């Protein structure tokens, strides 16, 4: 990082991602199933909408703008949460769901669906506005439960590899409980669960947008403080200890922040796959560094851009409504990662 050449390149790449993100954000607002022209969009965005059709104002204000913000913030959160997991476990296949946090969310939602059916006889799908709040709350509770469990275990295991195995096992347990609950649920509820499981950036209304954004921004900013411990942990646990790092304490913080980000995103948007796995690889290959002081902001920006891009694809003009976001993230993300791995890996010089 000392030579100015690579520093300039880093700033260039950072600038490129920022411009790309802004551009995609704007394009997300511009395109949709209803055609709204550029001038009207500018008027709405800059509060000068007297001559604009109120229906169009409502579409931009209540749907397109919040959806773009949610995509950007959720993308950034999942991407940086994935980076944290990949570095902690020194494993390129780790992602935010590796410790079972998302599986916990799914279990929470499944419990809610089952309980509603058992106690009121009605399916959650029929509860209207309460449904999405309830599902969000259930998802968050499930994720939190697993997170606390993992954090407690993290203070008791010998090393991070054991923790990784425990996390994967917890994910399996939560997954199988979810499967059991689904088996005894009504058809409508299973359908609702499947749709929730596909994820969406359009579930956060204007009223909840500030809370969602603030909760995640808080977590994203906290990752900056992890840059130094993450850099040291790249050397391996034993070297890290010798360099005065409290490995357990820092593993705890890394899991806490990564799990928190994942839990919040999943509560509002469902289990969004792949962004957390793919984006850290994209950032590493773009910046050609292992330094988290670069990778953290780089991953945040790349995560925003990729999520916005996926969101755009999911509602390409001509499509009625939204494609499930999970289908799009994997469809776009997987070939991208394959391409990164398959092309001749050039060593940084």
């Amino acid at each position, binding site marked *: *990082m*000392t*030579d100015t050449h*690579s520093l300039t390149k880093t700033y260039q790449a950072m600038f490129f991602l920022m411009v790309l993100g802004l551009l995609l954000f704007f394009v997300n607002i511009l395109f949709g199933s209803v055609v709204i022209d550029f001038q009207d969009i500018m008027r709405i965005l800059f509060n000068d909408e007297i001559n604009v059709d109120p229906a169009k104002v409502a579409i931009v204000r209540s749907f397109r703008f919040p959806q773009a913000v949610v995509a950007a913030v959720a993308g950034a959160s999942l991407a940086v949460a994935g980076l944290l997991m990949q570095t902690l476990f*020194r494993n390129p296949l780790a992602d935010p769901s590796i410790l079972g946090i998302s599986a916990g969310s799914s279990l929470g939602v499944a419990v809610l669906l089952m309980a509603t059916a058992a106690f009121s006889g009605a399916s959650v799908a029929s509860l209207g506005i309460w449904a999405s709040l309830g599902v969000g709350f259930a998802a968050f509770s499930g994720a939190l439960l697993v997170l606390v469990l993992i954090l407690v275990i993290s203070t008791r295991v010998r090393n991070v590899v054991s923790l990784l195995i425990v996390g994967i096992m917890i994910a399996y347990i939560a997954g199988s409980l979810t499967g059991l609950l689904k088996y005894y649920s009504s058809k409508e509820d299973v359908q609702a669960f499947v749709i929730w499981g596909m994820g969406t950036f359009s579930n956060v209304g204007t009223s909840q947008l500030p809370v969602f954004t603030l909760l995640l921004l808080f977590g994203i900013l906290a990752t*900056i*403080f992890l*840059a*130094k411990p993450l*850099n*040291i942990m*790249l*050397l*391996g646990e*034993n*070297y890290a*200890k*010798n*360099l*005065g*790092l*409290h490995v357990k304490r820092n593993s705890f913080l890394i899991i806490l922040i990564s799990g928190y980000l994942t839990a919040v995103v999943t509560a509002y948007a469902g289990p969004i796959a792949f962004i957390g796995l793919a984006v850290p690889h994209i950032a*590493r290959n773009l910046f*050609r*560094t*292992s*330094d988290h*002081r670069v990778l953290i902001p780089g991953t945040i920006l790349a995560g925003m851009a990729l999520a916005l891009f996926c969101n755009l694809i999911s509602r390409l003009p001509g499509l009625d409504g939204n494609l499930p976001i999970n289908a799009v993230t994997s469809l776009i993300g997987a070939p991208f990662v394959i391409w990164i791995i398959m092309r001749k*890996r050039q*060593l*940084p*010089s």
Partner: protein
Amino acid sequence: MNKLLEIQALEIGYAQKGKRPLSLLPPISVNLCEGDFVALSGPNGAGKTTLFRTLTAALPPISGCISFLGKPLQDYSAKEKASLFSIVLTERPDDFFMKVFDIVAAGRYPFTGWYAKLDKKDVAMIEESLERVAIQDLAQRAFVSLSDGEKQKVMIAKALAQNTPVIFLDEPTAFLDFPSKLELMHLLQKLAHEDQKTILFSSHDLELMLRSADKMWLMAKNQPLISGIPEDLVLSDAINNYFGRNNLSFDLNSGHFMEQPQYHGKIGLNIHSVEAKWVAHALQRKGYQVIEPQNTNIFVELQGHQYELRTNDRIQTYQSIEKLLYAIHKIH
């Protein structure tokens, strides 16, 4: 000399569930002084790694005391330990994009702020460390692209950047070819003698240690650790006792371990040039005892660059030792 590390009645080993801890050898009492270059050696399973992990605070001792500069190891904070001793392990960082400079810079991390910003002094120290092990040209190379010898030097540069009085190295020559081993030993020797670093390295490469180390700590299972300079340990038969096996013993003349010879023949050798050593080497390897030529009726002489095999009745010449060996084999 300035005592840096004092080990008193240290018992090492592992905790066992429900039983008293398993101690690997009798209590150890030994010291390290400034500028000491010490090899920790012993056969596999002697407890080298356990002692190494205990000294680097990765494993608690069963009993006894380790003190650095007169203060017990457990009384130092994690950060203080980082400026007391540095380690070089057999495990290596494997991140694809990690550069040599980044790894050496990690040696400065205990002394930087929360964002690990390197000041001018830090950068100067990193560069100095790279130069000390002569890898300044590799600074911007990817660590994973280096050879094993180069990687080992990078890890040593990291230890130097950490600027600790003591450096512990676990099997530093394990994956190196022979010239790289010698080069590494020479480097460590230089750091001990010129920079007054106290260096303890573990190894089971006996010949290398005899050749380079100033002092050896010999370990074997259930035997007391003994400390001494290599030559004394050789002559007192300690090397033989700690490393030897039934049919394998340390030959004081050659400085090698040799199998208890079972000769199936005696060959005289009447050569006085450098070839004598290698002809004898080959003959011994094949199980012939080499004796003075006047005591036998089969012997080898050198004519120009050819080997002559003389028996009672005839003289045969051979181009190479290989052909000579084949001829001797046919006679017996």
